């Protein structure tokens, strides 16, 4: 047995899982609250990365990641909010609106991704590492960068939880998700909540984009992988279930790492979808989802 190797892979899975969790939670939130499925989610991931790149590399602003995060949050919230207001909200009253939302966000994704390509060129962009060096515990080696990503991702999720549980807007978001009619009765402006949710989810995925850009780089089409993974995690955990999404993110992060380690990288995608299908066959609503 190679105990330390398994530990090594475990850490890899944990880091992956934390970032997936950060990003999948946003997708599941939007679906849970407004039943809208956002195909441009991956493009919002790239948006975060490019935003940070413009600030840090192109404009060369000093202030490091703290400054970038401080500026990115309002930018991303605003971007998501406006996007919802302008292109998603008008569709809500139409027939087949769910398909139309998928289509319009797919169109947006096409626009954004190719827009990045035109603006920033096809080549990848990189960000300075958030931290260098590593912690060595005997045979186990953990890069500080990974620790930082893990810590920031988890803080992001905790902040998100705090927001949902303890703020008026967070409670309103949960209220709309649990009972849209009840929410309407007490005077919660549903449409504004939908848009706000979209904004919050954009922040989640955009921050994920910034965190990962310094390790995995930014490229115009780089968001598709994120969209697919977030989607799988969301469905696996139960669409609209935030706790389910968190659990699923870590399970899939681990699965990815161990399948890659034991069987090889080719099998990761097969394994992901295999587990998803098996789960849905037994529990059509995902791990923690509810029908409706």
């Amino acid at each position: 047995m190679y105990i330390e190797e398994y530990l090594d892979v475990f850490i890899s899975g944990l880091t992956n899982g934390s970032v997936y969790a950060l990003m999948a939670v946003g997708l599941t939130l939007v679906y849970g609250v407004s039943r809208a499925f956002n195909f441009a989610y991956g493009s919002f991931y790239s948006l975060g990365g490019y935003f940070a790149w413009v600030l840090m590399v192109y404009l060369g602003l000093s202030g490091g990641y703290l400054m970038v995060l401080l500026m990115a949050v309002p930018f991303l919230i605003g971007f998501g909010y406006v996007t919802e207001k302008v292109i998603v909200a008008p569709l809500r009253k139409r027939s087949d609106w769910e398909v139309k939302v998928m289509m319009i966000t797919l169109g947006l994704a096409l626009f954004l991704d190719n827009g990045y390509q035109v603006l920033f060129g096809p080549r990848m962009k990189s960000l300075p590492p958030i931290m260098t060096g590593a912690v060595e515990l005997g045979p186990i080696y953990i890069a500080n960068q990974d620790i930082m990503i893990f810590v920031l991702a988890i803080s992001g999720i905790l902040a998100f939880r705090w927001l949902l549980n303890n703020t008026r807007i967070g409670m309103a978001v949960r209220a709309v998700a649990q009972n849209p009619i009840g929410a309407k009765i007490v005077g919660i402006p549903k449409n504004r909540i939908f848009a706000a949710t979209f904004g919050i989810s954009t922040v989640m995925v955009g921050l994920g984009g910034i965190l990962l850009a310094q390790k995995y780089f930014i490229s115009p089409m780089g968001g598709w992988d994120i969209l697919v993974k977030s989607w799988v995690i969301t469905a696996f955990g139960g669409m609209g279930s935030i706790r389910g999404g968190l659990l699923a993110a870590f399970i899939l992060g681990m699965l990815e790492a161990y399948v890659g380690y034991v069987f090889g990288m080719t099998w990761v995608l097969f394994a992901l979808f295999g587990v998803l299908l098996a789960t849905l066959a037994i529990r059509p609503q995902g791990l923690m989802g509810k029908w409706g």
Partner: protein
Amino acid sequence: MLTIADVNAYYDQFHVLHDVSCEVHEGEVVVMLGPNGHGKSTLLKAVCGLLDRVDGTITYKGQDITGWSTEQLVNQGVIYIAENRELFGDMTVMENLKLGAYAKNARKKEKRNLARVFELFPRLAARKKQLAATMSGGEARMLAIARGLMSNADFLCIDEPSLGLQPNLRTEVFNIIKEIHRQGKSMLLVEQNIPQIADLADRVYVLEEGCITFQGSAEEAAADDRLKEIFLGM
């Protein structure tokens, strides 16, 4: 206070209300009686901005509120309390109440209203942390009313408050409604039958097949043989 004039309302494609007119004066409790499925709830929903299509005129405190959104109405002090409660099941009693005070005008008075509500519903005060979904029918009903009161409303539209309740709970709910009335709120109440009608209502309407078929004071209603038999269970 509230005047409904020649209102026609539609539910999906169905024409439910036909030229309904009625009114509620300041400080009054008006009870709308009628059999199930004849449009009572639809009328309340029409008032509270919960229907997509309403023709006619609804005025509240002299303002034309036809076509207003629920959100605006809540801010103006009109609140709907649903027959099936529409609580937030996965949230605690306290969270439900706080959300009741979501409207702008209610936020400032949240603390005061919370104290009043707990005074009115001591049962809820003891269960602040319980999830709404795990409450019994009677408690849930009380929570729904309490949540409505949190909006600082002057005018309550209560949809069948006694539906599915044990007789003793029913009495308790009606007593609370009376208490709320004493505190100066006006109400439009919808019920299938109320034995204690005279005790509670100032005036009574009967809505059958989407039309108003009776109107009068509570005493007149209690004296009406047909009403007595059908709605008042006397």
